[in-house]
């Protein structure tokens, strides 16, 4: 008996990871808040730890209006141009 595989999707895409940072010291950190209650406060506090421990510079926060939808491409592109690394969070 021959069965089709039900998990077949479209053509495989080539996905690349960004090269890892060799050090966090002095890097510019971005924050992407997702609109959830207290998201901005929590992420700012997290960013402050990077400031204290690694001398990072915190960039103005990026925002997306819908927590459950992917961040708009233009926001991610802007962030990629402006910061060395970005932190975000999911959930409440």
């Amino acid at each position, binding site marked *: *008996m*021959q*069965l*089709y595989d*039900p*998990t077949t999707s479209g053509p495989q895409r080539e996905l690349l990871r960004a090269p890892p940072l060799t050090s966090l010291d002095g890097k510019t950190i971005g924050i992407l808040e997702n609109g959830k209650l207290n998201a901005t406060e929590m992420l700012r506090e997290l960013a402050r730890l990077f400031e204290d421990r690694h001398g990072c510079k915190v960039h103005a926060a990026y925002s997306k209006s819908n927590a*459950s939808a*992917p961040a708009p491409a233009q926001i991610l592109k802007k962030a990629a141009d402006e910061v060395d690394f970005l932190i975000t969070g999911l959930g409440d």
Partner: protein
Amino acid sequence: MTLSRPAKDAGEPFMSIAARIHEVPDNLLAAIDYCYEKGWTDGLPVVPPTLERVHATLEHEGRPPETVIATHPATGLELSLHAAAVNAVMAGCLPEYFPVLVAAFEAMDKPDFNFHGSTASTGGSAPLLIVSGGYADDIGMNADVNLFGPGNRANATIGRAVRLILRNVFQMVPGISDKSTQGHPGKYSFCIAERMRGNPWPLLCEAQGYPKGVSSVTVFAAGGFCNVENHGGNTPQQVLSSIADAMASYGCITLGQSVVILAPEHMRILADAGWSREEAQTYLFMHAKRSVEGMRAVGKYRASEYEKQHGAHAHQLVETGYVHRGLAPEDILMTLGGGDAGGHSCFIPSWSRGRGSIMQHKPIGVCIDCN
């Protein structure tokens, strides 16, 4: 407006899709077990997707099997007609059900439906499909007694195929990319037909503006089902106030949309009083509300949500000092369904606390203005 049915692909029907094929022992139970072992099921046994059954299903769709009908916005995973047919077979669909499944995913693919968010979220919603028009009768769907319950192959298997596609093609696997806190039974299957018999209101497909004879499927990211019992009320206000109370319960009230399926006993009360769908929607919107003080008392008040409802674009029926369910009467889909006996209607809330998913619809088996 032009209607068309996609022309048959003249080329080799299954050569252009890189579908993987698994060789399994020529034994039905072993094949079912193989599907379990591969992680392809929703926990219940599936029909092994043999090549012949999948090809027969694709006969009900004229476009090439590699045609993509939905794309996951975060992962880029794509749903081809071929993959949809494989999962339809596994769910137990007959080939003639396939156009409903295709239309449902074309509707879910609209960005405002946000099928990624509504499936991945802790909210634990399921896509509710409401099939409207003659096609539901053509394929033997149930719009009558035990509407949301078991017993009808089309209802059960079309809804199940939606779940299998979310799991198998889009990899929305419970615990990994489906983080539902509790989920609900509709995540196995949640598909009904709109009842035409005795329905005093325009069918949904008519209200949606489709040409005469064209059926539609509406998709709604649905939370759990809430039964609304009222056997004593005999005016539209009494019946609808019961429903409005369910819609405005502290556990359910959000700015989201609603589905209300009126039982025939309840619908007759409205129809005898001459109430239109629009009048009923307006009544529900006006009465499904909670005071700001009450919302604060249970910790659910958010100023940004209040502003969204009461700001510059507020509906004229919005009442100061109250949070209504939804943003406007049109946010409440209302129609007829269920068996003749019993004062049991239902309210089904939308997923999310806000406007994370907006219901969508598509025509079944036809393409409008595609030429």
